């Protein structure tokens, strides 16, 4: 396999990992005002992701760094082209990251309310905008022959991209609810389980519509197979959620998100950012890539360190495997 293909796959893996992991912690953030009826319940929700959210976010930092290193043209064109959505994502991630750490640092209800809002919007905004961004990558954007983005903000807000945004938000919401049901005890677990099924049905409808539209824009056999598998995984996850098999339900929504992201990358390949104008403007895994020398060194580093990272990050999840409930929240 060519190095550029390997790196296309690695970028796909990194974003898949990112959306599976941060997907549920975005979901938990969006559910904060819905499932958390009082301060203790909200603390239960936040503490289900407390030890892991930061590690989850590093998947994004790694994906960004890997794009920069392996496909500088892709990184440069996409980040300057998707300027305002990325700005909003950054502001959201700033607010929410600080909120997790600071929310409990003062007792005043007004202080907590503000950080709760930061967590909610800080989770909702990226959950929506990542969908918008990836849909636009799939659909293609106006690029000049020298790969500069020549569109405006409105070019990014087309119906297909908006559907993409709503879909990712709904999927993450479902994924988050399933996660809460898996990680908590008591009343909050019950409510999360029920909500997961209700929201999940809507997410499934949106996901099927979005993936079908995607495959209508660009497609490959692999992409079709992956999309079908994603739909099945989501339905399986929802069935498990209904039957209160929370572990299986989480495996289902995680697989569904992973397969959906994989569908997008499979449909995209070998392009990385298609142009809707001049075909010469289209960025591909070949013309956007770094030199074979750089890719080779990066490959060795990725081969050695990715399994190590996955092992210790997996171990963290094992350490914090126990469910928590309101009784576990300390008074102070």
């Amino acid at each position, binding site marked *: 396999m060519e190095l550029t293909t390997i790196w296309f796959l690695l970028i796909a893996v990194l974003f898949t990992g990112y959306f599976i992991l941060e997907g549920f912690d975005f979901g938990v953030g969006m559910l904060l005002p819905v499932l958390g009826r009082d301060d203790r319940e909200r603390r239960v929700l936040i503490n289900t992701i407390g030890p892991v959210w*930061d*590690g989850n976010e590093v998947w994004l930092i790694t994906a960004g760094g890997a794009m920069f290193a392996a496909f500088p043209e892709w990184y440069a064109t996409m980040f300057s082209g998707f300027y305002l959505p990325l700005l909003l994502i950054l502001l959201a991630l700033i607010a929410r*990251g600080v909120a997790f750490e600071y929310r409990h640092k003062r007792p005043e209800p007004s202080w907590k309310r503000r950080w709760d809002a930061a967590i909610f919007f800080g989770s909702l905004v990226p959950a929506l905008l990542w969908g918008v961004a990836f849909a636009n990558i799939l659909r293609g954007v106006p690029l000049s022959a020298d790969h500069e983005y020549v569109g405006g903000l409105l070019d990014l807000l087309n119906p297909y991209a908006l559907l993409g945004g709503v879909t990712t938000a709904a999927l993450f919401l479902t994924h988050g609810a399933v996660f809460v049901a898996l990680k908590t005890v008591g009343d909050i677990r019950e409510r999360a389980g029920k909500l997961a099924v209700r929201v999940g049905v809507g997410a499934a409808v949106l996901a099927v519509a979005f993936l079908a539209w995607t495959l209508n824009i660009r497609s490959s056999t692999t992409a079709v197979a992956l999309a079908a598998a994603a739909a099945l995984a989501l339905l399986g996850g929802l069935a498990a959620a209904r039957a209160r098999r929370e572990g299986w339900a989480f495996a289902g929504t995680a697989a569904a998100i992973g397969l959906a992201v994989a569908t997008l990358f499979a449909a995209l390949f070998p392009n990385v950012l298609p142009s809707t104008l001049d075909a010469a403007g289209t960025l591909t895994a070949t013309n956007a890539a770094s030199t074979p020398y750089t890719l080779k060194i990066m490959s060795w580093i990725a081969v050695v360190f990715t399994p190590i*990272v996955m092992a210790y990050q997996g171990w963290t999840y094992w350490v*914090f495997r126990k469910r928590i409930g309101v009784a576990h929240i*300390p008074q102070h």
Partner: protein
Amino acid sequence: MDALDVARWQFGVTTVYHFLFVPLTIGLSVLVAILQTMWVRTGKERYLKLTKFYGKLFLINFAMGVVTGIVQEFQFGMNWSDYSRFVGDVFGAPLAIEALVAFFLESTFLGLWIFGWDRLPKRLHLGAIWAAAIGSNLSAYFILAANSFMQNPVGYRINPDTGRAELTDFVAMLTNKVALVTYPHTIAGAFLVAGSLIVAVALWHLIRNRDTTDTPTYRFAAKFGSWVTLIAAAGVLITGDTQGKIMTEVQPMKMAAAEGLYSTESPASFSVLTVGSLDGSRELFAIKIPYLLSYLGTGDLNGTVHGIDDLQAQYASQYGPGNYAPIIPVTYWSFRFMIAFGMTAAAIALLVLWTHRKGRAPRSKWLLRAGLLMPLLPLAANAFGWIFTEMGRQPWIVFGEMLTRDGVSRSVSLTEVLTSFTAFTLIYATLAVVEFRLLVRYAKAGVPDLTEQPENDDSHDDAERPLAFAY
């Protein structure tokens, strides 16, 4: 005003801001790990108290470092896309490696440390803070290797077909001599901040509340922090000296700009104070120490240090017409502020140790005031150091290869950059106030009372026991 100016301001503001949090993350992570190691080794409660106390301050700061760091990575692509295209092949690699090798380690193990007090065996929990500290300190190397490429590009070639930099020697890029000397300098600078913070907080408690049960704990902390500060100051001086010599060799214009040295001198005098004309192009008044600059720059009392005017003429013939000098007042003063602020902190640390000699206790109001300023001084020194090194590189974004004005994103409008600059400035300013107040609040609260914790509360069975730590 155009998009380029705003993009430059944004980079300056967000970078300096980000680096307000980085030194504490780098330094305090190790110092907290050391305190916790002392607790595990000796079992003495005072070390546990200090671990938890400074650990809390560390975490308040850490959150800010993380979230402002993401902006840095995205900003290259957003505002500096032509720069990113030009150097991606070389510059992207250390960034990606940093994330994969260092950030995962730091974030994952810090999560384990924060929440793992009652979930992990004692030694494994100690291992978690060490892993996080190693991650922080490792990440600094990769970032500095990337930055050093901008100061002194090595291990690359320019592809004649694409006009872009391509990596040809990964090891040479990672072992750039600028990176090798900048790393210990930066790390020492970080410990200067971390040590100072430990002293300041301990001193405040020592002078405000005398003879409490925690007094010995704070005494230890004040002395520990002072030693760290002094050793770090020595480290900063030694590495800074080496850095000066390397800078004279690879970026002579920056050295000349640091000194406001217009014409080549051998031997060259060190300027203690030079007042230049307003535009910084002429010298009006100066106090100088003969031979010192020659020695600092070359290691030889009679060594030649090139002046701005000669270098300008040389660069103009080498790179074509243009102004190749940075803004002299900025480089001149930031260089001096860096040294002055850093060394003042070290002087206060010395004073603190003096007031603690042979079991004595500090009582001076003035020492308290100086102590409170103490962490701000090296923090400012760090900021001025970065302002110096980045402004001193101008007009280049990659020295000798690409001008800053050619690196900016062509597709990004003035409105867009202004929007993001305004948004970041507002949110950063708000968070700075919030963070500072929280730090003060928790610093004032003092070391925790460990007797209060219901370690063996029988009213709950194990499954119902409250978490040792919760957000």
